[in-house]
């Protein structure tokens, strides 16, 4: 790669040098606030750089196209929001909060790498950078009850799934002789009969990818890790870490149309159906909010797989739109929850939300809109996302998938409604409201969450702008 091409990879360079600079800042003992602002700046510069139009750049390992840039932007945006909510959350804790931002940026770097990779090597590289940072992030508050457990669980599972992933890649490579996504697809499409090694290779690949996405049957870690991780890290796993893997699937199976091959289609169909149903069913009986959101994310990944399965001319548009809307709604929910968290514990019990509407109407309204959006009720963006999935599903005649989706959405209503009901019930004569340690940050967070909520409603009522932007970027 000539040195001049490095500039094409500027988004990655910005994030990684940002991580280095913050590390240096730690050496000179900068304060928490300075570090956080530096982290915000890194994300903002990255976003600003991405908004500039550039030509498509293609290399052996990387492809910087509109699709990749869009996802990268989404990831950086999520990172920005997570940094916002992190300050107030971590400042109260005993542990040194500053290293957290280095890890956050490194994990983001991994996800960014995934966004623009179209080759197995870069895929694995990005995945490992992401995972390494996540091991530490999950167990960051190591004195907490579940933190070490969650971290260990994630470490072992991720290591296992990486092994599967590598073996899958090796099998595919041995059959096709290439590791480039498009080349693999071309070779497979030429074969009259797909060899069992290839099918096995894709199966093993899906074990690795499925683990990261926490789709059924690789979902068992999700609830525990969500619960054990600190709230902003949970938000990170739910959005950025999954976003990185999603785009890999969209590239590998969607853009190349490998998904239309019968064995891969059947495999994905089963995964999608199981994820939608199992995720929603498991969430129904939960009372822990983080666990509810973990199971709901399993179901939502199922919806996204459904979008991937019903791919047509603008199939990726559907999946991308849904991902964006889902991320915004999730970030809002996690933002509210981390604002409610106290020094001792995360606000992850249903009781923590009881009666919130009558004490903090704005925050409760934000939470309500986010839940309604996750449930896919009109007036919120979630409905537009679900509508698009239904639309492309019906267009391609996926009746089984669509009926399951409807059934799953109805089951999903149970627990979203449960959260909303908790917000609106009478408060159990709560003790004195704890002092807000950081009134300024509290206010800033509230404003950020409010803006996200407004965007959810505006997108739900008038989505045309976003749809046409997506249309131009993706085609």
């Amino acid at each position, binding site marked *: 790669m000539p040195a001049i091409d490095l500039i094409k990879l500027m988004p990655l360079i910005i994030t990684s040098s940002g991580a280095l600079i913050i590390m240096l800042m730690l050496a000179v003992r900068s304060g928490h606030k300075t570090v956080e602002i530096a982290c915000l700046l890194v994300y903002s510069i990255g976003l600003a750089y991405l908004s500039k139009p550039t030509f498509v750049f293609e290399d052996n390992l990387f492809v910087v196209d509109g699709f990749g840039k869009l996802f990268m932007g989404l990831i950086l945006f999520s990172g920005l929001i997570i940094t916002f909510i992190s300050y107030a959350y971590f400042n109260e804790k005993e542990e040194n909060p500053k290293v957290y931002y280095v890890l956050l940026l490194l994990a983001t770097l991994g996800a960014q790498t995934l966004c623009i990779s179209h080759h197995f090597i870069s895929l694995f590289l990005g995945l490992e950078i992401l995972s390494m940072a996540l091991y530490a992030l999950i167990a960051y508050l190591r004195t907490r009850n579940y933190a070490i457990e969650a971290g260990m669980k994630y470490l072992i599972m991720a290591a296992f799934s990486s092994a599967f992933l590598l073996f899958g890649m090796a099998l595919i490579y041995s059959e096709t002789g290439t590791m480039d996504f498009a080349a693999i697809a071309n070779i497979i499409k030429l074969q009259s009969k797909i060899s069992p090694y290839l099918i096995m290779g894709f199966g093993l690949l899906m074990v690795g990818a499925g683990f990261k996405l926490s789709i059924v049957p690789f979902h068992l870690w999700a609830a525990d890790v969500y619960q054990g991780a600190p709230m902003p890290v949970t938000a990170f796993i739910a959005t950025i870490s999954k976003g990185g893997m999603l785009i890999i699937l969209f590239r590998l199976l969607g853009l190349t149309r490998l998904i239309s091959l019968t064995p891969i289609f059947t495999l994905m169909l089963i995964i999608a159906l199981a994820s939608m149903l199992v995720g929603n069913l498991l969430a129904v009986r939960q009372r822990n909010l983080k666990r509810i959101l973990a199971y709901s994310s399993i179901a939502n990944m199922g919806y996204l797989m459904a979008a991937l399965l019903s791919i047509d001319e603008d199939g990726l548009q559907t999946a991308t739109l849904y991902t964006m809307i889902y991320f915004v709604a999730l970030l809002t929910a996690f933002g509210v929850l981390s604002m409610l968290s106290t020094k001792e514990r995360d606000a992850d019990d249903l009781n923590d939300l009881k009666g919130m509407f*009558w004490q903090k109407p704005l925050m409760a309204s934000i939470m309500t809109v986010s839940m*309604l959006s996750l449930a896919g*009720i*009109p*007036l919120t963006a979630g*409905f537009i996302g679900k*509508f698009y999935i*239904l*639309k492309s599903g*019906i*267009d391609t005649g996926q009746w089984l998938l*669509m*009926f399951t989706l*409807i059934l799953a*959405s*109805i089951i999903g*209503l*149970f627990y979203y*409604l449960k959260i909303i*009901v908790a917000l*609106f019930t009478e408060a159990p004569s709560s003790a004195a409201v704890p002092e807000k340690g950081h009134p300024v940050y509290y206010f800033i967070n509230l404003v950020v969450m409010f803006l996200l909520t407004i965007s959810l409603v505006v997108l739900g009522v*008038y*989505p*045309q702008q976003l*749809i*046409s932007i997506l*249309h131009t970027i993706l085609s």
Partner: protein
Amino acid sequence: MILVWLIIILMSGGILAWICGYFLTHLSKWIALVSCLISLIITGRLWFDLYNRIDLQNQTGWLMEFSVPWIKPLGITFHLALDGLSLTLLLLTFFLGLAAILCSWREITSKQPFFYFNLVWVLAGITGVFLAMDLFLFYFFWEVMLIPMYFMISIWGSERRIYSSYKFFLFTQASGLLMLLAIITLYFIHAHTSGYYTFDYDQLLTSSLKSNYSLFIAIGFFIAFTVKLPLFPFHTWLPDAHSEAPTAGSVILAGLMLKTGAYGLIRFVLPLFPTEAIQISDWALMLGVISILYGALQAFGQTDLKRLIAYTSVSHMGFIVLGVFSFNELALQGVVLQMITHGISTAALFILAGFLKERLHTRDINQMGGLWSLAPQMGSIGLLFAMASCGLPVLGNFIAEFLILLGAFQLHPVYTSIASIGLILSAIYSVRMMQKVFFGEVQNDHVTFHDFNSREKTIMALLTIAIVFVGLYPQPFINMLQPSIKSSLKLQTEIKNSNSNEISPQKGSIIHHK
């Protein structure tokens, strides 16, 4: 544009009521009242302006229309349109909305601002449903009216409110999603045959939809609307939701929300799926008749006053299905009149039950009794509306049910005969209700029971005048509805004429006087 204003007035009125309520609690109900009143006046004016433009013989499209593109890439337009049917139902909406706001005046004491916000937004959603002529927009409003209603039940309801609101939301949401599926399928079938992507009602109407799926699509719509109506196997959400909701909630549920189901059948199922409607008509008629009898029998067995009234609704809605699926002009006139009169009479009964509950703190009719001697005014009004509910002449319900039975009898004498047993049963449950509540022994602890105050008198007077007016002089409504009903039935009559020549399109002679 005036149609958009109706929705904007209500929605902004709701938000204003919410926000102002934080500063001055009592302001919120006044804002809600005023915004509803303005809408009522606008609709009333529209009625008088448009009444003379109704053309009895020909169907000449919409009386008023508003259309702007909304989501262009998908062919979704913000298309509102008004015809006689919508106008009549809008008038009912704002009239009952007014009654609902007035009857909550004292009943709702906690969290008033949010209550009136929800109340007004339900009305806005219902207005949207009656006006939307784009199927996507229709679904949109269909859902918009649900969420505030859900909050009304789950926050201000009585003891089992959480359970009932869950049930209400899940039933309607499930059926709504089924409808969404049907709508999208219809959209694609239309697009594949005509090459033109649109959700617009007028456009979908003109295309000849022949596809293997059209029966399933029709069933999807049918189920969505009959869950809302509700028809016999889907009715179980209704008694719970009605009895646990606050009075205003019950009034809007029974008076308006059930009517959106009936409206959907007339507006969408009949014109869009003429042949499929005939195919499913046998099942629909059977379920309708079962609903009539089952609802009436259930009503007879209830001890909870609000549940009793709720079951009478199931019974009366059975008549609507019977009328709609007779594909007959007379019957359909009866159906719309039934929607209006049932709306008024049930609303009155629910309000009365609310007044009783405010005074006695119970809905159990075994704990009532002898109230006539304590509150003769309340008793007589109760008697009036109980009689309306069992279809006594002079009161509106008589006209409606008579027309339905008359129209349906020409085609389905057996079903109609069985259905008319429902009238006898309705007399039985009405009389039992009167007996238990207002006659019999006076219970000791009710000595301080007081009669109507002036606000309550106003509400009841308005409702009484309305029901008697429709009962004595329904002709304006019949004239207003005539063109819409003709156009709804146009395709059915064509199909029937081509099938058998001996059946001429029925036109009752009483219809044409103006």
